[in-house]
């Protein structure tokens, strides 16, 4: 049975990128027709299916404002945007990766910097997660926000360590980086706008229970 989210009055924000394929597979299992989304990777709004597509870090923005009722994004994104007023309804299990502190192999340059300089320089795309992690472990860190490949930063001497996501560890290994600490395990999450969660409770509960069941 194929049914659209739109018919239930719902709009779902779907993340393009690493979670995209698994998310569409999940929607297929829920009976949502994802064919239009699969067939057209330039379109962003699929009104007939009740799906909008965007980069994962934009999903909380749309859901918080109510421009989408539901959204799927990584726990890493939610941790970085933890101040948003959102409901986190379900752990979807896929897209598993770890948020880690990594530094160059050998004697840990981060520990050396902390011991001798009292502060460690850390590059990351997740400045708030990194700041919280070092603060909560009683270490002073200077957070350097980068947009692109974080692995480059310790190789060039820009920083002593990085905070980043890793799924298989391959990229870290190829860049001679080793995991020093695991901050969190991140998976895809189903999030909801708090007002939609109250006013469209029946439709949302049906989706959550089908995901859990």
């Amino acid at each position, binding site marked *: 049975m194929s049914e659209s989210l739109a018919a239930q009055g719902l709009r779902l924000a779907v993340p393009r990128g690493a979670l995209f394929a698994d998310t569409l597979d999940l929607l297929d299992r829920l009976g949502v027709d994802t064919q239009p989304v699969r067939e057209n990777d330039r379109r962003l709004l699929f009104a007939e299916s009740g799906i909008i597509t965007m980069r994962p870090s934009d999903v909380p923005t749309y859901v*918080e*404002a*109510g*421009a989408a009722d539901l959204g799927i994004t990584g726990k890493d994104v939610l941790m970085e945007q*933890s*101040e948003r*007023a*959102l*409901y*986190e*309804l*379900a*752990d979807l299990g896929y897209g598993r990766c770890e948020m880690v502190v990594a530094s160059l192999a050998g004697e840990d340059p981060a520990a050396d910097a902390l011991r001798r300089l009292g502060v460690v320089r850390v590059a990351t795309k997740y400045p708030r997660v990194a700041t919280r992690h070092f603060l909560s472990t009683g270490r002073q860190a200077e957070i350097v926000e980068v947009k692109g490949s974080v692995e480059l930063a310790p190789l060039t001497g820009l920083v002593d360590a990085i905070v980043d996501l890793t799924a298989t560890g391959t990229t870290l290994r190829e860049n001679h980086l080793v995991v020093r600490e695991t901050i969190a395990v991140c998976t895809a*999450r189903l999030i909801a*706008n*708090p*007002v*939609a*969660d*109250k*006013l469209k*409770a*029946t439709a949302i*509960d049906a989706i959550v229970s089908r995901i859990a069941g």
Partner: protein
Amino acid sequence: MLDRTPSGTRDVLPDEMRELRALMERVRAVFEGAGYGEVYTPALEYERTFARDGARVSSPYRLFDEHGNVLVLRSDMTVPIARMVGSRYATAPTPLRFCYFAHAYHGVRPQRGQSRELLQAGVELIGSAGPAGTVEALTVLCDALDAAGLENYRVGVGDVTLYPALLESLGVEAAARERILAELTSGDFVGVEHELAQLAVSPADAELLLRVPRIRGGAEVLEGLDGPLEQAGAGMRTLLGLLQPRTARRVIFDFGLLHNLGYYTGAIFQVYDPAYGVPLGSGGRYDDLLGEFGRPLPAVGFALDVERVHIALRAEERSRV
């Protein structure tokens, strides 16, 4: 370089101001018609007024006066009105009914576009216990939203004591209770599930604790509640039975509703509109607050965020065309 207003504040220009003023006049007519006289209290209060045990609200803005007293910008109107009742209405017969249209001042998280200065329209009903007082407040709230012109709004009704009492009755220790309530307040139901998995409670109790905060909807959710939920369900059914049909049709019951304001003691409300993704206002019972100011009286009230009501009105209008 042009001078800007401080972040989180803004100027209101005539076109918007006319609409806000007209909206507030419609709401004010409802408040006054129900016997709620308008009051205005100082934007500045002594810090100790907001720091009382029963108040437990803090303002992020502190100033010193010329004598070294610490002053705060009020973070809501409920505490100043409680102070006013304790001093200016120390012996007046009850119930007392007040309404206000005033600014409150909130702290903001940087770069979120949040307002520091909120224009609130609200009422306080002092000396009227639940459920009758709660019913009156809900009636005035819905009549005001009708007068404002909203067509599709709903009012979520919960009880701030429900979930903490459930946790306690199932023997969850204080530290774990706080962690679970913190996850619930932040809306993280996955986090609640993780916390529950750590508890030494039976699977049936864990299932109950996970299910209860997700109970929300019309009168049908109050059916068939038993065990630890029987009393809560009965209380909400009583409330529903006392509401006029025009108000009852607006109410949704929400067992997961929690407010982060410290002074609520029982029924709590939150206002929603499907055209706008954020709540338009909130309120509830605060039966212990007036005692902090020398007049122990049960009380209930609500505050609407006038600018959000205005945004929702425009969104409803645009969705109709």
